[in-house]
């Protein structure tokens, strides 16, 4: 029941925030904050209450559309719990960031933010494939509006591009889900979308591969995986800061989660056959993203490519599919959510101060905003994989795990870590270092901004130095994967 509340609270909060916005805009912001905090409290309560209660911490199951065997089946395990907390955390930050930046249609903005969060939570919690798809698509529309309404100059194009990419891949997944559903029916005579029932549906290798590719298409676009990534930089270049945090930080985790929860358990054989290709794509993505990040002048675009590069590790880790690499991939998702979220936040703060997203218009900011610059430096370092921060732990484990079976991939990907140096340091150099050419005098971090970023720094360092509790929480879900291939 609490699981349902997790989603409902957000939606109610969104509607409320929308309703009051015209009268009292500020209240709308606070309602959003309270709704997310309430959710966070619920999630933490679940965590404390049931952490050692076996694989599923909580479940809830209702009939939804019985004619199709569709259930409203929610369940939470350690992996979902962590990702839910991450989602709410980043969501909270997105609301905080928008405090100054969003001044038009405030209510609708918060409605959309909360709806996206509800959709993401739905993805993490659903154990019914129809519900999963439903939530998956539900993230789309609010995100489209967020880009469209509060974006920059070319937002319409970016928003449509985002929508088209995700929609076609989503529909391919829908076909795949239905194919699986039908295949299951043919064998058992039961129509069901229930995850547990569909596991182990006997499929011919060809069918299994086709269906798996359908799922993969959706995940690949959303992660995003190498040749399907081009929507992300465009969207990030146009969208507002809070949107970008969700776009790059959270949507990717839904894809990673989908692979771990659905792709591998449902199609153990097909994924194994497909793994080399996926890993090649991952490695290309790592290098390609890093290279393109190197030459970007738009800060958001740079971060988007950097993010593509990092998410290559997630794909690599998942498809290398041994205990180390999968856990590394999950850790990378979480750490990436935080560090990329923070980088986008910083980019947003820089934009708010300098009035531009172009690196060329920034230089020597350390002179005038030392604290902001220092924090920027910190997250740039996190991004280049400096030990002691969460990103390093994740990427190191991915590589360590990948190295076992796929030496070449690991070595090339390790070079990708090296390539991250180039763009991260270029960012620091161009934005913060150098002479203060434009003689800017800008306000340094405000209390609220400093607090938000401080929390993120602490989180990242915690993940870097004492990640064991986190590993412990999702160990069950992640350890499950390698066993599938045996």
């Amino acid at each position, binding site marked *: 029941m609490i699981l349902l509340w997790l989603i409902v609270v957000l939606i109610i909060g969104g509607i409320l925030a929308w309703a009051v916005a015209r009268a009292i805009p500020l209240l709308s912001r606070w309602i959003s904050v309270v709704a997310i905090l309430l959710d966070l409290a619920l999630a933490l309560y679940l965590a404390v209450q049931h952490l050692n209660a076996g694989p599923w911490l909580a479940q809830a199951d209702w009939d939804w559309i019985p004619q199709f065997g569709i259930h409203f089946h929610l369940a939470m395990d350690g992996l979902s719990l962590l990702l839910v907390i991450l989602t709410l955390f980043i969501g909270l930050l997105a609301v905080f960031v928008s405090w100054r930046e969003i001044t038009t249609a405030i209510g609708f903005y918060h409605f959309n933010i909360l709806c996206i969060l509800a959709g993401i939570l739905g993805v993490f919690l659903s154990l019914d494939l129809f519900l999963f798809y439903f939530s998956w698509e539900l993230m789309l529309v609010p995100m489209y509006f967020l880009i469209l309404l509060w974006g920059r100059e070319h937002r319409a194009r970016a928003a449509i591009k985002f929508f088209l990419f995700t929609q076609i891949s989503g529909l391919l997944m829908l076909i795949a889900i239905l194919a699986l559903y039908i295949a299951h029916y043919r064998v058992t005579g039961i129509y069901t979308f229930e995850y547990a029932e569909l596991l182990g549906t006997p499929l011919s290798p060809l069918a299994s591969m086709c269906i798996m590719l359908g799922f993969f298409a959706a995940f690949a676009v959303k992660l995003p995986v190498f040749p399907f990534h081009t929507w992300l930089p465009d969207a990030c270049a146009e969208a507002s800061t809070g949107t970008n945090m969700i776009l790059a930080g959270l949507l990717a985790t839904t894809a990673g989660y989908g692979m771990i929860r659905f792709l591998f358990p449902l199609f153990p054989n097909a994924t194994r056959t497909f793994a080399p290709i996926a890993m090649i794509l991952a490695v290309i993505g790592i290098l390609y993203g890093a*290279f393109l990040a190197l030459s970007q002048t738009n800060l958001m675009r740079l971060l988007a490519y950097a993010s593509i590069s990092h998410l290559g590790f997630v794909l690599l880790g998942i498809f290398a599919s041994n205990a180390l690499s999968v856990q590394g991939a999950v850790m990378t998702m979480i750490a990436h959510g935080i560090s990329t979220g923070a980088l986008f936040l910083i980019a947003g703060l820089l934009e708010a101060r300098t009035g531009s997203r172009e690196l060329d218009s920034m230089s020597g900011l*350390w*002179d005038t905003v030392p604290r902001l610059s220092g924090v920027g430096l910190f997250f740039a370092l996190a991004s280049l994989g400096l*030990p002691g921060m969460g990103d390093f*732990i994740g990427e190191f484990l991915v590589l*360590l795990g990948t190295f076992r079976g796929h030496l070449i991939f690991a070595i090339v990907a390790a070079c990708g870590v*090296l390539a991250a140096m180039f763009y991260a340091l270029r960012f620091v150099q161009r934005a913060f*270092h*150098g002479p203060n050419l434009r003689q800017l005098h800008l306000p340094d971090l405000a209390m609220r901004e400093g607090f938000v970023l401080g929390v993120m720094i602490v989180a990242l360092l915690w993940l870097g130095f004492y990640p064991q509790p986190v*590993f412990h929480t999702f160990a069950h879900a992640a350890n499950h994967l390698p066993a599938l291939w045996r």
Partner: protein
Amino acid sequence: MLELLWLVPAIPFASALVLAVVRLPRKVVAWLAVASIAASTIISLLITYSFLHAPPAGNAYTEVLWRWLDVSGFHPDIALYLDPLSLIFMVVVAFVSFLIHLYSTEFMIGDDGYSRFFAYMNLFVASMLTLVLANNLLLLYLGWEGVGLCSYLLIGFWYRDPVNGLAGRKAFIVTRVGDTSFAIGLFLLFQQLGTLNIQDLMRVAPQSWHVGSGVAVAVAFLLLGGAVGKSAQLPLQTWLPDAMAGPTPVSALIHAATMVTAGVYLIARTHVLYALAPSAQFAVAVIGAATLLLAGFSALTQHDLKRVLAYSTISQVGYMFLALGVGAWPAAVFHFMTHAFFKALLFLGAGIVIQALHEEHDIFRMGGLWNRLPVAFWTFLIAGCSLAGLPLITAGAFSKDWILWGAASAAQGSTGLWVAALVGVLLTSLYTFRMIFLVFFGQEHTPIAKKPGAAMLIPCIVLAFLSIAGGYIRIPFAHFLEEVLPWTTRVASAVPLSETASATAAGLVFLLGLVLAWFFILRRPSLSSALVKNPAGAALHRFWFSDWAMDWLYERLFVRPILWIAQIGKGDVIDGSYDGLALLTQGGWRALRSTQSGKLRWYAAVIAGGTIIFIAVVLFL
């Protein structure tokens, strides 16, 4: 006493954190920064006392702080390991750092990034101490990257000049190239042996691999890659001369006394692996020998005082590599220690000189300072002699003679390496005295602006004392290290000369260098300029001056192609293919749109045509 070990890296780390976050007045900053390192130093000295007085079981002490991660068989701890080797490194690092911090409180006093400077410096010390105390390679890697980071931050400390930032970036990237190799080495080690705990590795490796086995060689070479990067050895040495863009105390601390020797520590720490991989060990020796010669030649031609010292550092670390490569393990560590003393001192002296002369770096614009800056002159002279190896008195001579002897007599030693080392002595002596003569003798070119205060002079004096006295503890030093790093001896063939003969030869060569330097610089300066003017000399000079044109080569081999690829890829070619799809659908739209002409009869014709086609389909299908 030993259980306080964790405080040694923790105190500087905490202090760095405070300095980074809290805004404090200058006095407090200085006090906090120095006190934290002092505390570390005192604790490490107490630990040393305790260690010597009552050695722990197995002559080693492990302190597990907490379990870092535990992921299916991979469970590195955050744990410290103290044995004679790490103890020596810890004490030297802490103590030299303390002196340099003290020196910096005065040196940096006018800088507006005072607090930031000490935050970085403390962070550096914490990282370095973590590196040497780590009980597993992952934690070592953390410290390893940490010092790399601090090096980057401190080289680019004066960020307003983009050149400094670029130098920092270069240092970070080049060392990280090596680190990538190191990391791959870690993957391979873990895959093969299932642990990254150093002691476990050293115990298991000889049982799993036979001497010369492929995996052992691969691991040794990969780790060597990391060491070469961090220690600025061939072929990754190019970053160190540029690193002199940082404040002088930074050069003293990081790019002379401590960080660059991390590679030496790594190889010494994992010497078991190198014993299993003779070819890799031989590579270490060859790299060391080649580096010490190449850097020596380059040092001869430099104008910038700090660059001379930088090449000298590369060269001296080359000696340490040579020692490691031939199996003269304790000699390498001993040279690390003496080098830390005299090279730190040289840099501190250089800092005094440079600050005294209005940030003048060119040695040809200096001169005649010996009576203007007497303390600096005498300490610099002592350090220089130690560097060049003034026999019987200076610490440098003792350590270098030991290495020379090792090059001839240790397990992997050979006459060739010994000769190379001897030539190195000549070069060292030459460039050292060229520098000293140009800076302190001859005519005064630039007037003095500022005289050093006590905080800058006391560290110099202490280091000067150590640059001499450090040499006399060679015997107890060797004894202390024996269990961890035993001296190896050559068995295959007889050594052609004795230790005394080797030392004598080194002494004579030192003298030769001194005389030559005196002759060319003070006695007949015209001769040296004539040498540089003749075409062959000029070409050679330019070649050496530019560090054997390696920067030039790398620029063309790596930097430009990478930037070029990045630039042409900027627009994301993949996106173009999607644009193609969009164009395709647009074409479809255009074609279909033209059918919607609004003409009634055309519409009717289409209906009729469609019907006829369908009739044909049903009839003939």
